[in-house]
């Protein structure tokens, strides 16, 4: 009788589902929850990060330690509460083994407690909040990016060595913007002849600030404008006839904004300098592999957000491999991660006590590559093996 068979089938299926899994040291699937932003203007960053995660998965054969990997992407809409809710969902519903991603510091700070309380690893692919590098570091939190201050500190050094004595600073008036200026002031020895903090994120008109900058006659202008604000600022910079004043930036000119600027033929951006931990032409095997694979798959350059996300996946893979897929061995995975034993885009590096990389910071310049595509190119190393200024505030000890 059909219904009888169906009943038996259903009952056995239910029994199988309800039965506790047979004792298995090795996980059957590695689940990673990746929180990033897909909505609104920062969506272009999220897309780049997702692309890069996919490139990493391709390189790994979609397996870590021989076990299939699944990455679940969630959109935090750049809102801390949503980010936290997505973290709760990934941990409390999808039962992910690792959390990764996170673009914005305020989202990171909101997610932190949920992540730490879960006992799972959080691999930060971008946000460089000083709190996480310092007092609120945690044994299960790792960064494959940097701490905010490091990058503008390097720019300060560079400005000193270039002999820049007067600088005009424009940045958005929110935590990251303030961090960038703090970082710059840590090392820059010249005079900041003017500083403007603009309303964030809605202010796209910079005419007033540019007029003030021009009137101050500085030797250089320093900006930090993530996302589409870079394009707006530099367009207006050129329209205001300010190209003669050298423009220095951090986290502004990248593979996301440069195609737009090139599309609009904003030549003013060519030749400008920025500092960062990476560039697409960094001479490391990791970078060469990553950039080639990304370009083959997506026909454009990856951004540093992507490079960081790529590294996050490789870091997790190195930990899974080290324990042969037995994810219960948290301590062993942690030791493996602390050794940074994977082919990172930044080359061989070590982790600091606060799980932030000890890494080089480079001077990059915006150039046209051999195909005429505008990109950033590494000029020279400013800091070798730089430690972020907050690591001493982190109580963890470096034992590796």
């Amino acid at each position, binding site marked *: 009788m059909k219904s009888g068979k169906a009943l038996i089938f259903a009952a056995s299926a239910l029994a199988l589902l309800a039965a506790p899994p047979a004792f298995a040291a090795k996980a059957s699937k590695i689940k990673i929850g990746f929180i990033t932003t897909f909505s609104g203007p920062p969506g272009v960053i999220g897309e780049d990060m997702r692309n890069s995660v996919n490139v990493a998965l391709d390189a790994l054969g979609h397996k870590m330690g021989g076990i299939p990997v699944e990455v679940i992407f969630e959109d935090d809409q750049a809102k*801390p509460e949503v980010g936290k809710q997505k973290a709760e969902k990934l941990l409390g519903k999808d039962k992910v083994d690792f959390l990764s991603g996170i673009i914005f510091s305020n989202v990171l700070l909101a997610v932190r*407690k949920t992540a730490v309380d879960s006992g799972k690893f959080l691999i930060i692919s971008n946000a460089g909040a000083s709190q996480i590098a310092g007092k609120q570091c945690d044994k299960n939190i790792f960064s494959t990016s940097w701490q905010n201050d490091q990058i503008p500190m390097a720019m300060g050094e560079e400005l000193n060595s270039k002999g820049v004595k007067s600088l005009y600073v424009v940045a958005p*008036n*929110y935590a990251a913007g303030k961090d960038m200026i703090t970082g710059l002031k840590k090392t820059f020895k010249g005079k900041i002849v003017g500083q403007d903090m603009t309303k964030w994120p809605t202010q796209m008109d910079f005419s007033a600030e540019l007029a003030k900058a021009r009137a101050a006659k500085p030797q250089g202008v320093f900006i930090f404008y993530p996302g589409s604000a870079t394009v707006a600022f530099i367009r207006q910079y050129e329209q205001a006839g300010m190209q003669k004043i050298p423009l220095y930036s951090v986290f502004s000119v990248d593979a996301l904004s440069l195609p737009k600027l090139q599309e609009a033929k904003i030549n003013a951006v060519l030749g400008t300098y920025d500092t960062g931990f990476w560039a697409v032409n960094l001479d490391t095997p990791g970078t060469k592999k990553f950039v080639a694979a990304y370009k083959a798959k997506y026909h454009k350059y990856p951004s540093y957000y992507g490079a960081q996300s790529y590294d996050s996946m490789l870091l997790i893979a190195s930990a899974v491999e080290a324990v042969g897929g037995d994810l219960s061995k948290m301590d062993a995975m942690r030791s493996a991660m602390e050794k940074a034993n994977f082919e990172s885009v930044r080359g061989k590096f070590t982790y600091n006590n606060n799980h932030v990389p000890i890494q080089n910071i480079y001077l990059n310049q915006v150039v046209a590559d051999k195909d005429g595509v505008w990109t950033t190119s590494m000029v020279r190393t400013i800091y070798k093996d730089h430690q972020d200024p907050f690591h001493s505030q982190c109580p963890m000890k470096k034992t590796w």
Partner: protein
Amino acid sequence: MRLSARTIVVLAVLAILAVVPAISAWTDVPFWTDLGRRMMILSIAALSLNLLMGYGGMISFGHAVYVGVGAYAVGICAFYDITDGYVQLAIALAASALLALVFGAISLRTRGVYFIMITLALAQMMYYLGAGLDTYGGDDGLPINQSSDFGIVDFGASVPFYYLTFALLLLALLFMQRLVNSRFGMVIQGIRSNEARMQALGHPTLRSRLAAFVIAGMMAGLAGVLLANHTNFANPEMMHWTRSGDLIVMVLLGGMGTVAGPVVGTVVYLALEEFLSGITEYWQLIIGPFLVLVVLFARGGLLGFLSDGRRDG
């Protein structure tokens, strides 16, 4: 006694909320408890807004400010190591009441779209103030690492906190029911209908509306205290005008002219958001037109749609 379709829906929603932790435990998905608690907290905020909008006819784009104030009260107290829940609650309620009094006194002299704009302006000013206060995190927000200590329930424990919130939601519903059917409630509704007439009858209309404003603000402040414990942080984004907009959507969706409408609206909206974003990345393509359709075809929100035309309290 035959229950109306509306009452059945409301009771169903409350019943589901009551058993969510059990479902969570049975399916081993702790996330449902978190989601349910968030729905209840925002329902309390929406209920308070309904007092202003539904019964008072005042469309406030600044209501989320009071939620934020409640959250910051908890956050700032915790920052100074004051974790006594009763102290935090007292400060939260006092602060929201005071702010509502001041903002209400400024805004209630205006009407219609001017009232909307003033409440929006005041809300944005609070947002920029919060984002500018670097000591308390600025726009990074203020992490709250210790839950409020009320002695009776551990706010740090997911399920007890859930049921306390549920109890508070029921209390809020009861309070609203009593309030709108009280003399004060009648006066407020009368003012919404025809202010001139109420004044002619000798009612101090400005004072009454201000009182409603303050009561609503305090209730939102309470929601803020709960929210701070739920999210373990306070940040200025909680006060942004778009958050007030979210609350307005939730109240309208549920049905503005009813006591429990906001609860239904909040639960449906958040459930829809959660469900749709799980299916597709482009969920806003669906929810956008859904809201438009609700406005066009479900006048009076979901509960209004279900009603038989009578409006009850």
